[in-house]
């Protein structure tokens, strides 16, 4: 993990030195980024909101990866998960508080999981490449959610492209995390995200099934010879992967806005790939990498605010450069793994 952060920091250093061309002092830019992440409880809260979302998608990508599959579809799975949570919430507005949240959570898990199951089935039993299929299903998910939100459950009191509001039963009113963090988008979902990364770690390190999934991912031939149900394991892993992506629903729908706003995700699903790569798929290390990427994303909009030259597009260059360096390092790691065989 320590080494794997090198890519992040080299990328950040290179990206910051780019700001010299824009006539800025890189140290100053770095300072703004830091302040943006920790400056106030609200700032930290917004960073942690992104962190929580990225933990879910990062876990999603890494669980699939451990099973030997590449889940590019976290973005679509989180949309469907969020949609299902919203629909469940609107269908049963009168459920009492903790039960209501559990039902919505279950809906999110099932939604994300089942959405992932289809490409996994195509991959395992039909041989279609999961990267292509999940990528295409991201588009279908976006279309489907937009249609349902706008045509079936739109917000009657607003012209915004968003769903109707969930009833108050679905909102954790005295959320301590929200209170500490200045009523920011961060919420109790952060705790769930941390819990999930611990559970995923526990699953892979301690349980027999976790071991089998890793064997399947690392050497499917040996797994098959060892009598492991490789197909079933891959299928279940991809379901879990999708379900974890669906966990973003807790972060956004239940923890933040109480409704589905079209376009709420700042590409959680894609940044999640970089997060997983940076953490070398280690579920605990992933918390750190998610936080770093979250802070970077949060900082991007503040750079626009604090400086005159670092516009939104420039901060995309910064983000992109960092992701590029993470990927280069991740690729080298991947090659080394392959090469040692």
């Amino acid at each position, binding site marked *: 993990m320590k080494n794997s952060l090198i890519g992040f920091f080299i990328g950040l250093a290179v990206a910051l030195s780019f700001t010299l061309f824009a006539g800025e*002092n890189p*140290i*100053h830019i770095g*300072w703004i980024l830091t302040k943006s992440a920790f400056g106030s409880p*609200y*700032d930290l809260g*917004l960073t942690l*909101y*992104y962190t929580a979302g990225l933990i879910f998608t990062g876990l999603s990508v890494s669980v699939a990866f451990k099973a030997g599959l590449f889940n590019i579809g976290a973005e679509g799975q989180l949309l469907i998960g969020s949609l299902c949570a919203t629909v469940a919430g609107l269908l049963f507005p009168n459920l009492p508080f903790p039960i209501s949240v559990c039902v919505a959570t279950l809906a999110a898990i099932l939604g994300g999981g089942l959405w992932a199951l289809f490409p996994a089935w195509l991959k395992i039993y039909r041989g279609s490449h999961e990267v292509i299929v999940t990528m295409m299903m991201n*588009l279908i998910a*976006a*279309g489907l*959610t*937009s*249609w349902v939100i*706008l045509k079936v459950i*739109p917000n*009657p009191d*607003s*012209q*915004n*492209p968003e769903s109707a509001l969930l009833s108050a039963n679905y909102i954790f009113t005295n959320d301590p995390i929200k209170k500490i963090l200045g009523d920011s*988008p961060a919420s109790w979902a952060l705790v769930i995200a941390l819990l999930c990364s611990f559970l995923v770690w526990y699953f892979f390190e301690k349980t027999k099934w976790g071991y089998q999934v890793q064997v399947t991912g690392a050497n499917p031939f040996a797994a098959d010879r060892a009598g492991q149900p490789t197909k079933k394991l891959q299928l279940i892993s991809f379901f879990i992967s999708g379900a974890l992506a669906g966990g973003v629903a807790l972060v956004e729908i239940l923890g*933040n*806005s109480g409704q589905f*706003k*079209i*376009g*709420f*995700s*700042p590409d959680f699903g894609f940044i999640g790939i970089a997060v997983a790569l940076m953490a070398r798929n280690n579920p605990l290390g992933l918390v750190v990498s998610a936080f770093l990427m979250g802070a970077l*994303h*949060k900082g*991007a*909009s*503040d750079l*626009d*605010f604090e400086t005159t030259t670092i*516009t*939104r*597009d420039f*901060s995309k260059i910064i983000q992109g450069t960092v992701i590029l360096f993470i990927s280069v390092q991740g690729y080298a790691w991947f090659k080394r793994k392959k090469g040692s065989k």
Partner: protein
Amino acid sequence: MIRSLLLFITILLFNSFSIANLKVGLVLDKGGKDDKSFNSAAYEGAQKAAKDLKIELKYVEATDINALENLHRQFAQKKYDLVIGIGFAQTEAIKKVSKQFPQTHFALVDGELLAPNVRCLLFEEHQGSFLVGAIAALKSKSNKIGFIGGMDIPLIRRFSMGYVAGVKHVNPKAQIVENYIGVTGEAWTNPAKAKELALSQIASGVEVIFVAAGASGSGVFDAVEEKKKLAIGVDSNQNWMRPGFILTSMLKRVDLAVYKVIEDSLNNKFTSGVVRYGLNDKGVDYALDQHNDKILTADIRSKVDDIKKKIIDGKIQVPDYYKTSKK
């Protein structure tokens, strides 16, 4: 290093105190200031105000929905006098932040929200769309008229409904081909897809296309230039972008509204509440300039001006999607 940091902070602080003028913050939508359309119009209005009225202007572009609230709060915390949010997506953010900073004035374009320190700037897009619909029907020789929207959201439906009504008002037999570019926010910035849609509409016999799709619109302009057809621009005056191929533009004078609210703030005349801009105060209109006066013939102009008058007088009722969609 710490010393240099401190120096920076002091400079920043001095900067903010040294100018005692009105400070205006502008939060642009995802589309960004260069969409040559909606956000561009807002940006131009603010720039013009900065020049004419000697105010201090700072603009930012949002990265995603959740960043909006943060940006508004930052402006308010930095003691900006007026913060302008462009686009319906900022409603929630302004609602929350305006409550926390009752001393700060806010303006919201396209969103509706009642608060003592917020002015909402709304436009009767359906009326303007009706006019360009009528122009399209008058100009087109075929019975097929095209509409390309960005994302299928209520606002764009409002455009399309007014437009369709305008076409039918002139030519009840006309058939309208309606397409949307996408289902995600990327629909506003995807000219390639817009061009494809336009080409396929043209192939099916469409001669005039009204495009309400932010920065994607340029793709449609490319297509009509290639196939020698006509397009109608939106929000800003886009006639100059492809002279001779853009029949007119449906003006939504966000620039005027933004300029006005800045001016009012400067003169201590800021009022809260909803201000609607329609045909009567030229808040919405069709564009006429040296780039299109040859294709938009005097004959058409006089007919359209007649229709415009009837709408202002209430003799023609333009259907409003916002009212029909609410049960």
